[in-house]
């Protein structure tokens, strides 16, 4: 490859990475947290204890649905598991456009008395749609665009890289600052390249018919002008999905003849044996109608596909209905790609591996953003005036890389500290998250960059490190109690927070040390992340 093309690619890598870097960092960090979405929700609902029998929960859920929506179009029940102690029921009334949902207490079947919280769902929504709900798919376009930048950045990064195998193992912590940061960036990027590429590409799969609907329009579109179809894809999407679903029984229309649906417990117990594993969720189409169809889905686990094994039953007789067990190869590939991204199949060990790899991806993006600043800083060392763009990038880096984690910790603090009966409590938690995030940006803008780095890192260390203590002071499910009771969900959350706090403390000490060292030398470096040593190595 000629040098000039390599230079173009390096340029593109730096700029594509910068333009989408902050959005991508948020998507990766929120996505990494979403690996433990259920566990986060469970920690944020400390009133819900472990040890609930799934079949009792099913009976309670069925009773509740029969009371609130006996003639809905569809019911869904997600049963409790070791990852999530609550039962979630959702239903959609006939001709309604919205789906309603409730969390249930399994014992009483009543709406749960847990504090109102969005739990891990906030991070999940941030991850793929930037918490934008109106119009509902705008966030998908933004995350799709950012992901395309990621793919361009990954591919240009690989193509520019001459010594990809040597750099696999190179780390020089004592070398010049720029070289250290570059080594760190490469060390995070190169060995995990398959993961970065996989997670970026598969991230497009769940949203692909929204951001790239042209194949669907070509095959399932109608006579309307293209732009009109693009604005309203519902008709094409319906035609496409009914063509894809091979089980006609699952789509049976209502007969409009009332007929009570058989007890779900008996169906679920029968299905669990056939599925060879625990039941994860149950949905009923046309409940209490002669044409009711009950779909029992195995709890994800073991299989990569995002469509775990399922069985269909006639809702009014309880007899099994035929299920197509062999989807086409393309459908299998698509389901596997989707499944790889969502990681719902993963057992706890693999889930931790996804979490660690997600953190590494986030750190790769963070080191890339930092490198952008460090590489350009040499131009300004002799000048006191730093260009506005450079100043802004460094501030946004601080607010994104450390401000976002602080906001996440603040969200957990709000969950424990807000009064339980305050109105719109869940919304207040979310508002705390965004306000704290904004305030880290303000701090970054008001302070000199090196001080700002040290201060926000120190704040992050405190915000995470004190969470186990906060939990112990505000609930009776503190770390010691959790360990004694073998409640690994609570214990795991508390100790992970403490570990993250220690990591931030280590970073804060490093940065503060460099700031002091450069101040002692009398060199006015614009930021603590750099030292004055880069010159001698260039």
């Amino acid at each position, binding site marked *: 490859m*000629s*040098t*000039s*093309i390599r*230079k*173009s*690619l*390096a*340029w*593109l890598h*730096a*700029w594509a990475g910068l333009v989408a870097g902050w959005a991508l960092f948020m998507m990766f960090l929120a996505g990494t947290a979403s690996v433990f979405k259920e566990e986060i929700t469970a920690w944020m609902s400390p009133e819900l204890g472990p040890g609930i029998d799934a079949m009792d929960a099913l009976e309670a859920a069925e009773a509740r649905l029969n009371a609130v929506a006996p003639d809905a179009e569809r019911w869904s029940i997600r049963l409790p598991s070791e990852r999530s102690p609550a039962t979630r029921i959702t239903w959609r009334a006939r001709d309604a456009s919205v789906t309603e949902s409730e969390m249930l207490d399994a014992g009483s079947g009543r709406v749960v008395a847990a504090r109102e919280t969005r739990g891990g769902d906030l991070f999940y929504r941030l991850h793929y749609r930037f918490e934008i709900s109106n119009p509902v798919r705008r966030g998908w376009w933004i995350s799709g665009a950012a992901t*395309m930048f990621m*793919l*361009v950045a990954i*591919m*240009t990064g690989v*193509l520019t890289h001459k010594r990809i195998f040597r750099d696999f193992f190179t780390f020089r912590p004592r070398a010049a600052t720029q070289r250290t940061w570059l080594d760190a960036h490469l060390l995070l990027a190169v060995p995990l390249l398959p993961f970065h590429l996989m997670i970026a*590409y598969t991230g*497009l*799969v769940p949203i*692909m*018919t929204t951001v*790239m609907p*042209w*194949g*669907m*329009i*070509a*095959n*399932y579109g109608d006579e309307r002008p293209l732009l009109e179809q693009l604005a309203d894809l519902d008709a094409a999407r319906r035609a*496409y999905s009914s*063509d*894809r679903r091979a089980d006609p029984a699952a789509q049976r229309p209502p007969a409009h003849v009332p007929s009570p649906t058989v007890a779900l417990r008996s169906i679920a117990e029968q299905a669990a044996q056939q599925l060879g594993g625990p039941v994860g969720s149950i949905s009923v189409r046309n409940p209490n109608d002669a044409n009711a169809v009950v779909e029992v889905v195995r709890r994800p686990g073991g299989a990569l596909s995002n469509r775990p094994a399922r069985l269909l039953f006639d809702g009014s007789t309880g007899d099994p209905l035929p299920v197509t067990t062999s989807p*086409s*190869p*393309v*459908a299998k*590939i*698509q389901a596997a*790609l989707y499944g790889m991204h969502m990681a719902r199949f993963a057992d706890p060990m693999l889930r931790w591996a996804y979490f660690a790899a997600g953190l590494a991806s986030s750190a790769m993006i963070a080191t890339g953003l930092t490198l952008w600043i460090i*590489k*350009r800083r040499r131009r300004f060392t002799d000048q006191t005036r730093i260009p506005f763009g450079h100043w802004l990038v460094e501030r946004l880096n601080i607010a994104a890389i450390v401000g976002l984690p602080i906001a996440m910790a603040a969200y957990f603090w709000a969950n424990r500290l807000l009064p339980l009966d305050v109105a719109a409590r869940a919304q207040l938690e979310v508002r705390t998250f965004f306000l704290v995030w904004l305030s880290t940006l303000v701090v970054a803008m008001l302070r000199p960059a090196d001080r700002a780095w040290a201060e926000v890192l120190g704040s992050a260390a405190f915000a995470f490190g004190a969470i186990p203590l906060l939990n112990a002071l505000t609930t009776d499910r503190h770390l010691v109690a959790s360990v004694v009771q073998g409640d690994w969900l609570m214990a795991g959350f508390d100790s992970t927070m403490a570990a993250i706090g220690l990591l931030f403390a280590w970073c804060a000490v490093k940065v503060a040390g460099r700031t002091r060292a450069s101040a002692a030398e009398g060199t006015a470096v614009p930021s603590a992340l750099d030292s004055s040593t880069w010159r001698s190595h*260039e």
Partner: protein
Amino acid sequence: MRSEAIGPGTRAARRGRRRGVEGPRPSLVRRRADVAARAAAAIVGGYAVAAVATAALARLLPLPRSDATAAATLFSFVVYTVIAIGSFTAPSSLAAWLRISFATAALATALLVFGK
């Protein structure tokens, strides 16, 4: 070290760099216009090619309709990535746009002629 300020550069600058000499450096405005034209080619042009390619493949792949749609859409992001990077490695922004126009026209023709 001026190289990182140059960016993809104009054709003249590239020719100069290839020969190992720094040719006359194009003006800042020209360099900015070149980057803007390439970025537009990568983002807008890349999407256009990917969109038409997806529609054409969805119609033309010898698979059941739903499978052809899924396969074409899964492939579209590869097309987009390649076109986006190609826009910045092309000898000039004009060349990038010419390639994109040609690819779009060829795929659209295939879609309209064979995809009915």
